[in-house]
């Protein structure tokens, strides 16, 4: 953990704490538009653990001068390499400044804008975006295959993979021309590599790795769920510590983030994901794919008349949606057997209310447990207006700062992958060209 303190009017120190003792620090002076780094130190036994990197990243994020400067012994190669990684270049050599060598004066002009080209192809959307500094959506193209998969009542993996390969070049080309940029303007290339449909992921992954090789720019692999979380950074800046409620077709997670690089699972679904449950209910009442939005539409005109079970009221911060799914199946079946008709609008309304109630109460419980004052919501189901507004209301009543992405950034898109990739870019977390796709993976940075 890093703490900043002021020593004199222009002098500051960043201290790196492990178990309440300082194991490293970075001192700097601020004069007008220049920040001079005067001293960097890390205890012997804590070296090579990225502490200096974290200190520098903290510095770069907390002050915004025109340039950073520092001086280093020419023999201190480890430090020089680190500084070079941060964009420092040698501008002057002080001959024989040290007993054993020259001093290099290095400076780093404050980074120009960082442009990341990001590809998302984990399911049935081929999307390419160019994202500036992790927060600005410069250009995005999304090619959705919904119309094709509608014919099958769901996503067919082999069909999706085939379409990704055919569409990827169009989508890439359209994004570049919308942004009026060239591939050589990019600072890094990023894509989703997990979780998702393997055949689909591979099209985006191989394209991205190839571009990284051609233009000799870093390749960044992004976990799809991390992308959903960082969609909240688009046009906005997330405040930490925060609790993230991730709701999608494959996930229902509560995650606590102390800072932008720390992840702690607070709760998960024990069985079905909330989006999956919406889709199942849609199928039961014969609504077309994608089911979730159609259930929401019907619920809008319905009344809460059908009794629904209480969803996992065990005091934990986990979710369970398989019970309500079976309940709806049985309910519809029994009514049919009795020759009664089902009021689909009322059924969807009752179902959506029950699920939302569970999401709201478990999220509130997790907020109280963690003490987080910020809540973000992410994932495809976050585009459900009723759920968004219910969570927003709960936050207002409890003085929680709430953020949810625009609906277009809730469903799968390249922008969110670019936003997450920027966090990895800042932390020098680059991936190797032998990266493989993975169908399953817990949230990782």
């Amino acid at each position, binding site marked *: 953990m890093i703490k900043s303190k002021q020593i004199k009017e222009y002098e500051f120190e960043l201290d790196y704490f492990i178990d309440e003792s300082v194991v490293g620090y970075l001192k700097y002076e601020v004069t007008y538009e220049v920040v001079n780094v005067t001293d960097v130190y890390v205890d012997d036994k804590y070296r090579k653990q990225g502490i200096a990197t974290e200190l520098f990243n903290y510095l770069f994020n907390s002050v915004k001068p025109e340039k950073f400067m520092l001086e280093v012994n020419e023999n201190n190669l480890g430090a020089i390499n680190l500084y070079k990684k941060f964009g420092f270049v040698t501008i002057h050599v002080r001959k024989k400044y040290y007993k054993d060598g020259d001093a290099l004066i290095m400076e780093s002009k404050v980074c120009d804008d960082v442009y990341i080209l990001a590809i998302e192809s984990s399911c049935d959307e081929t999307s390419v975006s160019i994202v500036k500094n992790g927060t600005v959506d410069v250009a995005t193209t999304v090619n959705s295959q919904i119309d094709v998969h509608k014919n*099958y009542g769901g996503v067919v993996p082999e*069909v999706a*993979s085939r379409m990704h*390969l055919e569409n990827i070049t169009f989508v890439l*080309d359209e994004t570049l021309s919308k942004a009026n940029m060239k*591939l050589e303007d990019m600072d890094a290339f990023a894509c989703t590599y997990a979780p998702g449909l393997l*055949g689909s992921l*591979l099209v985006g992954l191989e394209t991205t790795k*190839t571009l990284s090789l051609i233009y000799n720019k870093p390749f960044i692999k992004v976990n799809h769920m991390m992308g959903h979380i960082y969609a909240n950074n688009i046009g906005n800046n997330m405040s930490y510590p925060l609790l993230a409620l991730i709701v999608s077709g494959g996930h229902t997670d509560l995650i606590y983030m102390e800072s932008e690089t720390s992840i702690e699972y607070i709760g998960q679904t024990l069985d079905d994901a909330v989006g999956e449950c919406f889709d199942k209910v849609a199928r039961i009442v014969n609504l077309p794919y994608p089911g979730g939005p159609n259930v929401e539409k019907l619920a809008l005109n319905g009344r809460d008349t059908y009794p629904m079970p209480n969803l996992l009221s065990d005091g934990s911060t986990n979710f369970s949606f398989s019970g309500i799914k079976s309940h709806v199946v049985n309910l519809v079946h029994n009514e049919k057997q009795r020759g009664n008709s089902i009021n689909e609008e009322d059924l969807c309304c009752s179902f959506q209310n029950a699920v939302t109630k569970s999401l709201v109460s478990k999220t509130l419980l997790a907020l109280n447990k963690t003490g987080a004052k910020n809540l973000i919501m992410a994932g495809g189901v976050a585009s459900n207006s009723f759920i968004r507004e219910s969570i927003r209301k709960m936050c207002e009543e409890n003085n929680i700062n709430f953020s949810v992405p625009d609906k277009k950034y809730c469903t799968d898109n390249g922008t969110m992958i670019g936003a997450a990739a920027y966090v990895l870019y800042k932390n020098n977390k680059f991936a190797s060209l032998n990266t493989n796709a993975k169908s399953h993976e817990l949230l990782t940075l």
Partner: protein
Amino acid sequence: MYTLFIDTHSSKICLALYDGKILIKSEKESIESHSIYVVPMLKELMENNNVSFDDIKNVVAVNGPGSFTGIRIGLSVAKAICYSLDKPIYLISSLTSMLVSYESDDYKMAVIPDNKGFYISVFDKDNNSVVDEKYQENIDEYLSKYNKVSGLLDVKKIIDYALMGEPVNVFKVKANYVKVIEVMNDKK
């Protein structure tokens, strides 16, 4: 200037650089996914031979039939190169590449087995098609009529043959799956 050759339709990945005279080949039996190997192999092949992307004049890619995933990996790489560097892309079928590798005075047949059947194609001695590419569960009838080629690939001959054809618009590059997947037959 070099032609870059990319073949990922089977478990053996083959990349090559060809300047019209000398062929530099890199092959690997893919134990896990092709995804782990293809781009690193390309990087190594180019670096070891001091070839940069500026030295690539065109790409010849094998577009199947064979492993669906394998084909898509090779074609994703080939498309990314040809789109970004504006180079012509030539496609060749995996069956054709087997047939043109093999000299014969008679009809010759290429066979690629998969879990339920076989992809086949038959050429005459001048490489004119006799039986168009198809997927068959049983090929006994064809085996009794035609000689099966060995399956060994002569990359020089394959590249020369592919370059005699027309380049494909990179936006229209498609895999040559041959087999229609079952679900597409019983659309709702």
